[in-house]
Structures are given as structure tokens and as C-alpha cells.
């Protein structure tokens, strides 16, 4: 039975034809090598762009999903002001609200390095509005940290501080110009790199001290809603309750994140178009016709008894081998470039943010769709571009072609 299948396979796959195709490729090795290189490079570029886009989209999605459902800010003359902590209790009375947490946080500009740190206050025994923070409070006791005047920093922050020779502590400059020395009590692993590489977690009291915060006020209030469908309703109820607030919901945030990203993807689109363009130049060059030698060869093959489909099969093998190998090599190189090397140069086009964030790693998102898309954009198109002109010549009267 197996032998039978083997024979059948041998009958459908003509090894002589494949050998001839390989031979034919080698006979034009410079031209084919050039095409191979270009195809590989284009596949590489295209796949890399898709891989990076997917990774960033994944990263942004998880960032957005980790964002609070509702943020309540107090505004006056269009600017944000500290909000009364007492409002938390009022908000908790609204039906549908499962939790409301006052956040104390702010940006600290570190002049030496020219970067912003996000300093977030943590109260050990209160609910945390983020899972990653809850994890940090399991690992570090913020009551303890408060007594030692310590903080927990993200890896990126640690790096920046070290570069400025702050290894064990950091001196924050308070609004009144005096210094506050805070020791580095630990490093936390961020949920997503993109989001929190610039983050410092501190006992809430320390944050209040560094930013000179009113003890009865907070930066904003984060509200959790049990049923995500009720977010808008709860948001409008809060607005009704406190006319002087601005309510930001997950949706609003998603849109603004998406906007940052879409702006970036415009640049990709440009890249994408350039590579497609180059590809079509190749296609154009191929389909604009065969050289007289190539034509004559087809004529000779037909004269010695090859059918049109024999000729086309041979051309198919030839173009398939070139395009498939360059596709595979391009995808392989791109996997290494994006996920092992973290896409140097290309990544910078996508991720502008703060200097701190350039350190983040692209999460591996294996996406068959990308591979299929690039495959269909390259392999069949190249094969068709090879077959069509050959077919035109092969169907002419052999006599005219070889004369």
C-alpha cells in the first residue's frame, strides 16, 4: 500500500523537471540571486512591520485594559485640581459602583536626565486599583517602607537613577526647595513594559510630602463599576453629583491611545507602500517579457516534445523555489530581528514616548495571519509574474520562437 502511494507520488512529481528547474536557476545565478535578495528583504521588511505593529497593539491593548474604568478629576477653568477625598464616600453610594479609590500621584521631572518619573502613592491596607499594585503590596510592606522612607522603582527608573550615581537613595526636590531623601527599597516587575517602566511606587504619605499635597485631597478618584455596560450611566451620575468634575472613561482613554498609535501607523503605511512599490517593480520587470534567450529555450523545449504544461510546471518550480525560500528566509530573519534583537531602528519609528520607554521589549505575538498575508503578497504574485510571460511564449507556434 505504501509502495503504491510512493509510485503515485513519483508519477506526479517529476524529479527530472525539478532538477531542470534548479539547473535553470543556477544558470542565471546573478539575476536570480538579486531577485532572491530583494524578495527576502521585502518579506523581511513587511513581516517585521507587521510583527512590530502586532506586538505594540498587543501591548497597548493590555495597557488599555488595565486602565481604570472611570477616572474622576476636579477641574477649574479647564485645568485639573486636587479633589476632596471625602467625595469617595459619596461616589460609593451610587448604585452600580463596586469601588472608589482616591489616587495620589504625579509626575516628577528629573532634570539631570531630562525624564519624567510617574510617582504613585500606595496605601498598604486599602484596595489597589491595579492588579500589579496589589502584587507589589504583597511583596513589599508599604507601612514598613513609610517608616524607612523608602520606595519601590521600575527597572527603567533604576537605570536612570544609577546613571546619575544614585544607587541607594534619591533626593527629591520639594516645591519649597528643600530635599527629601528616599531610599530605594526594591524594584518591581511591571505588568507591561510600555506602561510602567517609568513608575515609582511610594507610601502615600511620602508622595504627599514630596508634592506638598493637602492631606484631605487626592489627585483623582478611580471608580470601578461591577457591570461594564453601566460605565456610561455611572459616569453621568457622578457628573450630576459633582458639577466641577471631568469624568474620563475607559472608552475615552482607548480612543486617545488608539490615536497615538494610528498616527504612528501612518508612518508604517508609508513604509508598506514603498516595499509594495519595489515589489511591483520586480513584477513589472518580469512580466514585461522574456529575453530572446529565454524565449528560444522555451521554443527548443517545445520542439523536442515538451507540452505547454511541462514548460509551465518547470517555470512554476523555478519561481516557487526562489519565492518560497526568500519568503522563509525573510520571515526567519524578521523573527530574529523583532523578537531577539528587539527591532533596532524600526522600533523607534513606532515607539516615540519618553526616553525611559525605549527600553521596553516587544512581547512575542505569534500571528499566523501575518505570515499568511505576507505569503500571499509575495509567493503567488511572484509565481504568476513568472508564469504569465512564459505561458504567452509557450503557446506561440514553436516554429516562430526558434527560428
Amino acid at each position, binding site marked *: 500500500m505504501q509502495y503504491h502511494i510512493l509510485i503515485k507520488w*513519483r*508519477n506526479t512529481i*517529476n*524529479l*527530472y*523537471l525539478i532538477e*531542470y528547474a534548479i*539547473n535553470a536557476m543556477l*544558470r542565471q545565478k546573478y539575476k536570480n540571486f538579486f531577485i532572491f535578495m530583494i524578495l527576502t528583504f521585502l518579506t523581511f521588511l513587511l513581516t517585521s512591520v507587521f510583527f512590530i505593529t502586532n506586538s505594540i497593539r498587543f501591548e497597548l491593548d493590555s495597557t488599555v485594559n488595565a486602565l481604570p474604568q472611570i477616572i474622576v478629576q476636579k477641574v477649574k477653568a479647564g485645568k485639573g485640581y486636587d479633589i476632596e477625598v471625602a467625595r469617595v464616600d459619596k461616589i460609593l453610594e451610587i448604585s452600580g459602583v463596586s469601588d472608589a479609590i482616591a489616587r495620589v500621584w504625579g509626575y516628577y521631572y528629573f532634570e539631570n536626565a531630562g525624564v519624567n518619573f510617574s510617582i504613585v502613592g500606595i496605601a498598604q491596607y486599602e484596595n489597589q486599583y491595579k492588579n500589579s499594585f496589589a502584587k507589589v503590596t504583597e511583596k513589599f510592606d508599604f507601612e514598613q517602607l513609610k517608616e524607612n522612607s523608602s520606595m519601590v522603582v521600575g527597572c527603567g527608573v533604576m537605570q536612570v537613577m544609577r546613571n546619575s550615581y544614585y544607587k541607594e537613595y534619591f533626593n527629591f526636590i520639594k516645591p519649597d526647595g528643600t530635599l527629601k531623601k528616599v531610599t530605594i527599597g526594591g524594584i518591581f516587575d511591571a505588568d507591561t513594559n510600555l506602561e510602567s517602566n517609568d513608575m515609582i511606587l511610594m507610601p502615600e504619605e511620602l508622595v504627599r510630602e514630596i508634592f506638598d499635597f493637602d492631606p484631605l485631597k487626592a489627585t483623582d478618584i478611580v471608580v470601578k463599576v461591577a457591570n461594564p455596560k453601566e460605565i456610561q450611566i455611572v459616569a453621568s451620575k457622578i457628573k450630576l453629583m459633582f458639577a466641577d468634575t471631568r469624568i474620563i472613561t475607559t472608552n475615552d482613554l482607548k480612543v486617545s491611545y488608539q490615536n497615538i498609535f494610528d498616527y504612528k501607523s501612518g508612518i508604517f503605511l508609508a513604509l508598506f507602500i514603498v516595499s509594495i512599490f519595489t515589489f511591483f517593480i520586480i513584477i513589472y520587470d518580469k512580466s514585461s517579457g522574456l529575453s530572446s534567450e529565454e524565449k*528560444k*529555450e522555451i*521554443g*527548443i*523545449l*517545445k*520542439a*523536442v*516534445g*515538451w*507540452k*505547454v*504544461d*511541462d514548460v509551465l510546471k518547470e517555470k512554476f518550480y523555478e519561481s516557487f523555489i526562489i519565492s518560497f525560500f526568500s519568503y522563509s528566509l525573510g520571515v526567519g530573519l524578521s523573527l530574529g530581528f523583532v523578537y531577539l534583537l528587539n527591532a533596532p531602528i524600526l522600533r523607534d519609528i513606532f515607539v516615540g514616548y519618553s526616553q525611559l520607554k525605549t527600553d521596553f521589549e516587544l512581547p512575542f505575538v505569534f500571528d499566523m495571519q501575518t505570515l499568511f498575508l505576507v505569503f500571499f503578497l509575495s509567493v503567488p504574485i511572484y509565481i504568476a509574474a513568472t508564469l504569465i510571460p512564459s505561458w504567452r511564449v509557450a*503557446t506561440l*507556434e*514553436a*516554429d*516562430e520562437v*526558434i527560428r
Partner: protein
Amino acid sequence: MSKIIELKEITKIYEVGKHERIQALENVNLKIDEGEVIILKGVSGSGKSTILSLIAALSKPTSGEVLVEEKKISKLPDNFASIYRRDNIGFIFQKYNLIPNLSVKENILLPLIPLNLNGSKVDEKIQSVMKRFHIAHKQNTIVRNLSGGEQQRVAIARANVNNPKIILADEPTANLDEKLSLHFIDMMHELHSQKKTIIIATHDPLFFGLDFVSREIEIHNGKIVS
């Protein structure tokens, strides 16, 4: 002897551009028996190559019919014409029509490739035909580097590798000196002794009056004159 090839009222007109038409053959009738050796002679442009090309089904007549073993090969669809050539015709072209950057062996293999035979059979056929036509010692040489006589022997070997019934040769000695031309005639003689039907288009006087040639047919202006 039985008839193998018949040309019936063949006319061939080439359309060159939009308005110019060249009449290459006009009302040609010809019957050839199996095993015959035919010399087609005539000045340049008289239509010799056109006749060979029609018999090989490399082109189609404008009107009339070409019959080979009673089959109308002038009406064959392209793919069937290829199969017909593969199984019946060995064509030795004027310029040999070898693929210059392939080796001797690879050129001789060409007609066998679509057959997808098993490896030992293919080797056997190629080796035997290379020996018969004295080119085996150059089997791995790239054809471009061969002399004219050697290239022709490759062409003859390739024309015979499928063991065809009909051998067509177009100006076979045009590029050869006298010694090589006589050698070519020897090889045709050998093929004749194997009962092959042979048609040679030539104006080389060396071919005139050979004892194994059955007929000399003269073409003039696309018509048979004798």
C-alpha cells in the same frame, strides 16, 4: 512499402506585419514511404525548412493537410502536437538548437524529461545514444565549448534518444567541413539501415546521387518541381 507521411495541397502563407504576406509554400503534394531517405533541395528561401516544420507539427499549414500514419497532424491541438513530436520526430535543426549552457548529457536528456521514466532507463538510453553518435567522451562538457561537428553529434543524439520513426534534418552540413559532412552522411546511412524515414533539406552537392537516397525532390518558389 507503406506510406508514412503525406502532404495534401499544402499552402503556407506567413503574415509579416499587417499588410505583407509571404507565400512560402503553394499547393504542395508529397507522399513519403516508410524507410525512405528524401533529399529536399532548392535555393535559399524556396520553402525547404517550412516543409520540415510542417511535418514536425512545429507550425500549421494555411490550408491543406499533413498526414502522418493517416493521422491529421496539421489539425492537432498544441499539447497533442508536442506528444506527437516526442514520440515520432527527431529533428536536427540547422543551428542545432541546443541549450548552450547545459552539458552534452543534459541536452540529450531534454526530450526524456516530460516522460518521467525511472532513472536507470533514462541513463541507459542516454549512454547508448551518446555512444552511437560518438559524443560519449564529452558527456559532461558544456555545449557552448564544443566544436561545430561535436554540437551536431549532440543534436543527432538528442533527435534519436526517443527512438523516433522519422528523422528530419535541416541544412545539416552547412557549418561542417567535407570530412565531417561525410561522417554525417555515414550516420544517416546507419539510421537508414534501422528503417528510419529520413528527410534532409540541403543544397549541399555531397548529398546528390547517394545510393541509399530514394528520391531527390526539388523545391522552387514554394512548389515542387521534380
